[in-house]
Every structure is written in C-alpha cells, then in structure tokens.
C-alpha cells in the first residue's frame, strides 16, 4: 500500500497535533492549584507542554524515521545527495520558532503582569508622579520608607492597588532551619502558616542568616529570603487544604528538612485559630482553656503515671529537680 507522501505527512501532522493537545490538557504533572494565580501559571505550562510535545514528536519522529529509512543499503558505498541548503525551508524553520517564542514571551509577560510581577514598577511610578494622591492603605503601610528603598519581588495575584485594607499580613522569617510566622496585627507567633480562604495575603519575607527561599508548590509561588533585605509575596488562596512550605534555596546541612505547612481554612476556623493562639500565649489567672494541673508541680502531676513509665520517684527527682510550680 503506497500512501502518497502528502497524505502520509498530513496524517502525521494531524496525529502530532492531536497528541500534543491531549497531553497538554491531561499531563497531570502539577499538584492542585490552590491560589488565584496558580491556574494562570498552569495554563501557561499547558501551552508550553503542548508545543513541546509537538516539537518533540516532530524532531524525534524525523530522527527515528531517518534511522530506519535512510540506513546505508548493503554493498552501497556511494554518497547521499548533495543537498546543502533550501532557503524557503530554512526561513520557515527560523520563522516559526521565532513566532512561537515571541508568542510565549508575550503570553508569559501577560501572566507575569496579571500576577502582580510588574506591580513594583507601577507602584513606584505612580507614587512618584502623584505625590499626595490617595493610595490604598496597605501601600502606605508598606511604603513608609522612601520609594527608593529596594523592596523587591512583589509577586502575587492581588495587586496592592486592589487591596482595600483587608487581608492578612504575615511576617515570615527564615532561619537555619525553620520558618517563623509573625502576625503583626494580632501579635501571634507560630511555626505554621494559617491563612483564611479567599483573603488577600501579604507575606513579608526576611532571612536571619543565609539565603532561604519560601516555596509553596500548590500556589506556584516562590521567593528567596535574602538576609539584609525584605522581599514579598502577595496572593489569594482559593482551595482549602494543608500544603507544604518548602525551603528552595540551599541553606546548609538541614536544607532538606526545612519545611513547614500552610493551612488554608475557612474564615471561621481561621478566626478560631487566632483566638486559640492568643489565649495560649497570654498568661491568665483564669485560664479559658482548662489545662489540668497547671498549678500543680511536675511530681504531683506525674505521680499516678510513674509505675506505667517505669520510673521511680528518686529517678524523677534527679531528672527533674524540684522547683516551684
């Protein structure tokens, strides 16, 4: 069955296109998208996968086809045809990739801009040109120092101009080898990041010692924590869940163990957590959360359990020297 080359090429082209689009939509390579900006990144990635699969199939296909079809025939020591150039073909395979990368550049620029990556520029320009003009509250609070101070990497979805004073601000500190989260509004300090669903979040990221990087794969956001300067991430979480916070810049031996979690929860749960944190940290004569035996000594509290634990009272006294309370 001798299929004409044109038809065969057409069929191959159609197949390649179909496979590329299918893989682009169904690759399943990324984790759940849990912030407003994440689907934008995923859409961009899907497009790039589609293009890559297409190009991959074309090039690999041509190579494998050539590997079999154009093998040296037995006993034929002659040369192949003296093809040296083909200007229209070369223009085609220069032009098409050029258009593709230009298109990807524009698309990437759009995505980057939508997630607020150029906001820094807009903010500073705006600030410069409209002195005294009203700017949304968070801008003021974060722009106390002179506009020329290098505050870099303002990346997130909700651009600062949209934030009307609501939302959550968290000071994130990275140090060898943990993340510490301070909520300046309520004075809470925590080793985990709790955030309410659907609220704008501003993370102000600092590093105490060496470079770290704050990365939540499900938000598709990563920002280096740079000692000596503050960096930021703005975003809005959209899916309830618990996601890993991964340190993504080599920071020493325990870099691989430097992780935390971000818990996205409904507003009510978040408020309850805030209340609990406040209560736990406030010393009180009337503890709202009953903590049995808080006023008892360690020995008294443990007495019923000593037999279970297999420790004698003497051992306990040695291990835990008695002091008041």
């Amino acid at each position, binding site marked *: 069955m001798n299929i004409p080359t044109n038809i065969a090429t057409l069929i191959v082209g159609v197949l390649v296109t179909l496979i590329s689009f299918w893989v682009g939509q169904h690759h399943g390579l990324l984790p759940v998208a849990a912030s407003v900006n994440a689907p934008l990144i995923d859409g961009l990635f899907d497009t790039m996968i589609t293009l890559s699969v297409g190009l991959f199939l074309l090039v690999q296909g041509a190579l494998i086809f050539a590997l079999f079809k154009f093998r040296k025939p037995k006993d034929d020591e002659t040369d*192949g*045809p003296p093809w040296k150039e083909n200007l229209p073909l070369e223009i085609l395979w220069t032009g098409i990739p050029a258009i593709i990368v230009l298109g990807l550049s524009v698309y990437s620029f759009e995505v980057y801009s939508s997630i607020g990556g*150029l906001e820094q520029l807009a903010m500073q320009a705006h600030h410069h040109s409209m002195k005294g003009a009203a700017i949304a509250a968070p801008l003021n609070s974060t722009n106390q120092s002179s506009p020329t101070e290098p505050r870099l990497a303002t990346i997130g979805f909700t651009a600062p101009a949209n934030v009307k004073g609501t939302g959550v601000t968290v000071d994130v500190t990275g140090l060898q080898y943990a993340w510490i989260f301070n909520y300046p509004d309520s004075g809470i300090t925590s080793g985990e990041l709790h955030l309410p669903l659907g609220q704008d979040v501003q993370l102000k990221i600092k590093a105490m010692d060496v470079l770290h990087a704050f990365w939540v794969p499900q938000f598709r956001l990563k920002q280096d924590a740079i000692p*000596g300067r503050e960096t930021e991430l703005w975003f809005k979480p959209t899916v309830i869940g618990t996601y890993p916070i991964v340190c993504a810049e080599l920071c020493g031996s325990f870099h691989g163990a430097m992780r935390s979690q971000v818990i996205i929860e409904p507003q009510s749960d978040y408020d309850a957590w805030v209340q609990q944190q406040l209560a736990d940290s406030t010393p009180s004569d009337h503890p709202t959360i009953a903590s049995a035996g808080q006023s008892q000594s360690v020995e008294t509290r443990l007495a019923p359990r000593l037999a279970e634990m297999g420790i004698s009272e003497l051992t306990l006294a040695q291990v835990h020297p008695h002091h008041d309370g």
Partner: protein
Amino acid sequence: MITAQLDGILPVNPSPELTERKWWDYFTFNTDHKVIGIQYLVTSFLFYLVGGALATAVRKELSTPEVDFVSRELYNSLFTMHATVMIFLWIVPAANGAFGNFLLPLMIGARDMAFPRLNAIAFWLIPPGGILLMSSFLVGAPASGWTSYPPLSLMNGKWGELIWILSLLILGTSSILGAVNFITTLLLMRRPGIGLNNMPLFCWAMLSSSALVLISTPVLAGALILLCFDLIGGTSFFNPTGGGDPIVYQHMFWFYSHPAVYIMILPVFGLVSEILPVHARKPIFGYQAIAYSSLAISFLGLIVWAHHMFTSGVPGWLRMFFMVATMVIAVPTGIKVFSWVATVWGGKLRLNSGMLFAMGFVSMFVIGGLSGVMLASAPFDIHVHDTYFVVAHLHYVLFGGSVFGLYAAIYHWFPKMTGRMINETWGKVHFVLTLVGFNLCFLPMHKVGLAGMPRRVAEYDPQFAAINLICSIGAYLLAVSTIPFVINAVYSWVRGPKAGANPWNAISPEWQTLSPPPIENYLGEPPFVPDPYDYGKDYNPGKRPMSQVKAADLWR
C-alpha cells in the same frame, strides 16, 4: 563510486623525515597541539570518572527519602564537588581544550597553534587545579553548591571554600589561555584558500566559544576574588552583616556561568556538525545558518544570565528583559537542530557508534532545549526554580547534549588520534546502556520537580520515593555503562586493528593525513579542501579542472 581520493597526497611509505610520536611524550610538557589535545582528553576523562563516582554516591543517598548513606554535610559536599568537577575538569577542558587543540590546526591546514608554549601551559594548569580541588576533601570539601552563594559559602568550612576558589581561579586561567590561542590561530593561521566561509563548522564553534571564554571568565575571577576577600580578609562585599549584598555575587557569578553552559555546548555543536555528514555521506545542511547561529548564540549567551535569578532580588522589568532574551536563544539553537535533522534526512547512514551517539545527541539535546524554553518563562520558572525540574533540564543539555556529543567525537576521531579502530560492537553496547541509563535517571526528575521536590536535599518528602529509586537505578546503569567503554578504548588503543589514514572516507582536512598524524601534521603543503562537506559530488583533491578554481582559492 564516489570516495575521497588520496593518490598523490600521501606517500605509500612515509619518508623518514616525517617524525613519529613516542608514547612517553604524552606525559611531558610538550608543545605539539596533538599531544596537548590528547593530554586534555585523557585527563578530563579521568575527572569525568571522578565526577561520576560522586554522582553515584549522591544518587545512592537519594534512593531513599531518609538520610541513610552519608551525613548531611558530606552529601552537600558530594553534589557541590560533583558539579564543580564535571564543569571545570571534564566538559570545559574536553570540549574546548581536547578537541579544540587536536583538531583546529589540522582543520585549517596549520602546523600547530599560534602559541604552542602557552598551549602547553594552559593544559598543565589542569592537573594541579584538579588535584587541588580534590584535596579539599581532606579539610572538609565545600558544601555550598557549585554556585557557592554567600552568605552560606562564607559560613561553611573556610579551608574547603578557599581551596575551591583557588582551584577555580587556576582552571579559569587555563580556559582563558586556551581561548586566546584558539581565536588567534583561527583568525590568522588558516591555510591559503581557507576563508572564514569555508572552514569546517567546528572552527566557527570554537571561535564562538572562545569569545565567550575571554569575555566572561574574568568576571567569574572577579566574583571569586571578592568572595575570597570576604572569606579570609574580613571584607563585606557580599555579606549583609557588613553592608554587603549577596545579590551582587549572584549577578557576577552568573555573568560567567551562563556563558559557561554555552562554552560547554557550542564546541559540541561543532563536533556534531562534523560527524553527521561523514556518516550520512551528505553535506551539512545549511552551513551558513549553522555558522552564524553559533555567533548568535555566543552573543545572546552574554545577555541572559539573570534568568538564574528569577526568584531572587531582581526587579520585575529586568526579569522580563532576561526572559525575552533567553527565549530568543531558542531560535538559533532550533536552526541547528533542524539543520542536523535535514543533514541525515535522505542520506546513507552508517550507524556506527560515533553516528549513534551523534544522533542520540540531537535527540536528547532537543528535550533539554524544550525544558529550557519552559524555564525561560519567568512566571513558570517561579514554580520550578531550584527544583528537580532544573536538575532534569541541565542534565539533558549537559549529559544528553555535551557528554553524548563528546562520546560521539571520541568514537569518530579515535582512529585519527590513535591510529587504531575502536571495537564497534562494544561501542554499540555502550551506546544502548548509556541511552537507557541516562533517560531512566533523568526523565522522571521533571515530574518530581513539578510536584514539589527541591534540589540539593539529602532528605525529601516520601511521596517522591518511588521515582527517586527509579532515578537511582538509572544512575547505577550509567555508572556501569562506562565500563565497556573504558575497557574498549584502552584495549583498542593498545591492540586495536590499524586504522589507516581515512577509515571513514571523509573529506575534511584532518582525514587527509596519516593516523595518527605525523608531528608536522602534513607532508609538504597541507591539502587544500575548499569544501569539507562536499559529499555527493566527484571529489579529487589532487586534480581540479582549472575552470573550477577561483582566484580566491589560490590567495588568501
């Protein structure tokens, strides 16, 4: 029947005036470019084995999610040294120093390089630089990654980091001296009749690579010297506690280290452009395009460095500039890939080991190039920066690209360098083991990077355990794959069948002389090869009808 004719070029019995090389010359300070080339090749290959052993240790640790093979500190040293050795002691010297030195004078019809003594000095900086680097294991090897970002690199062991800096300064100097030689030789020592537009494409590749070496390596030296002052001199160039800025180091470091990747791949592009036509029996497709694309990549390679810093401290508008410039590099690279495919298309492919590795190079490099275009996109890179997606990409271009290409070149020019044929069957075994092991090791890394696994970690989320085990098995297979190659190469060098001057019937100038070439390279005048890719036509270098000879052929 069209084959290259050598009548009238080579004597049947070489006259006693053509001197032969003695084997012990290869262990001395020798100014012959062919000796230096082989010295570079063997030395760098030994360091490749060292780097490979380090990689095997890394992968052994990563085969389980816990830290159970080495300590965390040692693990960080292992991957730091793995990368440093592979870059500065294997690929850069092998692609540039080894093949650049051995081939360039032969390809342009010169007797040697422009500065033979400088050439030997450049090589002899490699062994001490390498030994110095390895000695850091005795005092606590550096453990801050081959990128050595401060402040971390100022806080780990001082001696290891100092040794690392000094050895890189030595190896960088070697690289610069080599580049000086290559550029001078290529621009000034071409044989009459060989213009820039008909010299072999490997020469264009070496011009482009050497330009990058000259421009960017001194900036690395600057960065390392300032880092050294911070480390032992109490200065604060990069230390924030003293008012310094770690980001400045990143800019200076990457200003070299991005061009460095082109220094590692451009010569290999050139080598592949030489190999494919010979075994496809077809001219290289698009000579002009390939030549100029090398220059384009070289130039563009200098203005994309901050794409390594997309999540660092660089303003958004600057990220956009670097994103676009990086995307643009895909165009000249794509031109090459398509030209190579067009070269083999319609040919009469001899699928020997060199050709298999060369085609494998195109195949694997495309994958690395595609993931590279993805990484160029700044918003996407935010997610995958510093993850295994990057590790996958860089290994596809550096191993699937440079190493495959270097293997292809070793198989292809083995007869010319040693005068003997390497065993083809074992070469094919080597190819299959390498191809399978390589893809098994690095393809799955794309997935775990996208899913959330960062790089440079000894311990990781157990959800990635299964894939990491697969990667480690692939790595072990890669380790095993070098065994048949080493045995084959050594045995064939000593006792392989004699090769003759031109076992591949190639047209390129280096094949128009004995194997191995005599010290003088050629008997009498170096042969005039106006078109080194002139397959598919009648070819007889000794006799050309006057009507085909242009005045420009006779005079420079």
